[in-house]
């Protein structure tokens, strides 16, 4: 599924969307950066409650399709800026992590 379709279906707020045509190869959820480094795969969509700018470096290094900051967490302004600089798709949603993961699964985006 394309990121643009996911954004529309789940009404995600786009903070940075340089590559919304990207196809999403699955999802991963964790708030611990080195757990994400170890387990997330290329082109997955990462769900987290972290709003700190270090999440963007992780997304770049793992070559993720994008990052969704869930649970209504407001990211630091630097996070948005960095996402734009690095060309990382960054979204927010008021949906809790569990709910968001469930909705993604329903759309066919599995682990």
């Amino acid at each position: 599924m394309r990121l643009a379709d996911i954004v529309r279906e789940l009404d995600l707020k786009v903070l940075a969307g340089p590559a919304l045509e990207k196809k999403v190869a699955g999802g991963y959820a964790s708030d611990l950066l080195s757990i994400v480094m170890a387990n997330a795969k290329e082109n997955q969509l990462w769900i987290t409650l972290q709003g700190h700018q270090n999440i963007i470096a992780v997304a770049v290094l793992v070559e993720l399709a994008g990052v969704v900051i869930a649970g209504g967490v407001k990211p630091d302004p630097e996070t948005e800026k960095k996402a734009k600089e690095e060309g990382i798709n960054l979204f927010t949603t008021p949906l809790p992590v569990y709910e968001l993961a469930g909705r993604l699964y329903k759309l066919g985006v599995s682990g």
Partner: protein
Amino acid sequence: MEENFEQTISLQFELKSHDFVQAGEASSEIRRRLKKLGFASDVVRRAAIAAYEAEMNVIIHARRGRLQVEITPRQILIIAQDEGPGISNIHQAMQEGFTTAPDMIRELGFGAGMGLPNIRRFADEFNISSCAGEGTSLKIVIYAGEG
């Protein structure tokens, strides 16, 4: 390899304690260079992740340090050296889940105790040595050869 290079390419990055603004810049730059040089994506990814974990450990746990990278068509060598508290029990530090990161650091998403285990997993060669009260050095090698 898209871009042929015969000489060793050397990169060097200075790292400062608790500099979470610059954090990840060194590894991102290493990744960009390796990509541009045409290394296989798996090689780029493993090198970038290992570099990131080494970089963050200096920033989080040490006072200051340096990342040195030597790139040849055959391998990527990453050396991380720091001045800091060092690690008194390396065996323990290598265990998955072992961390001494304080709450303030854990709130930023670090401190899973997975950094060193990740490096060991993604590297083809990995050496760690440390002197308590002085500092720590890591030597990481990623082979670039096919297969």
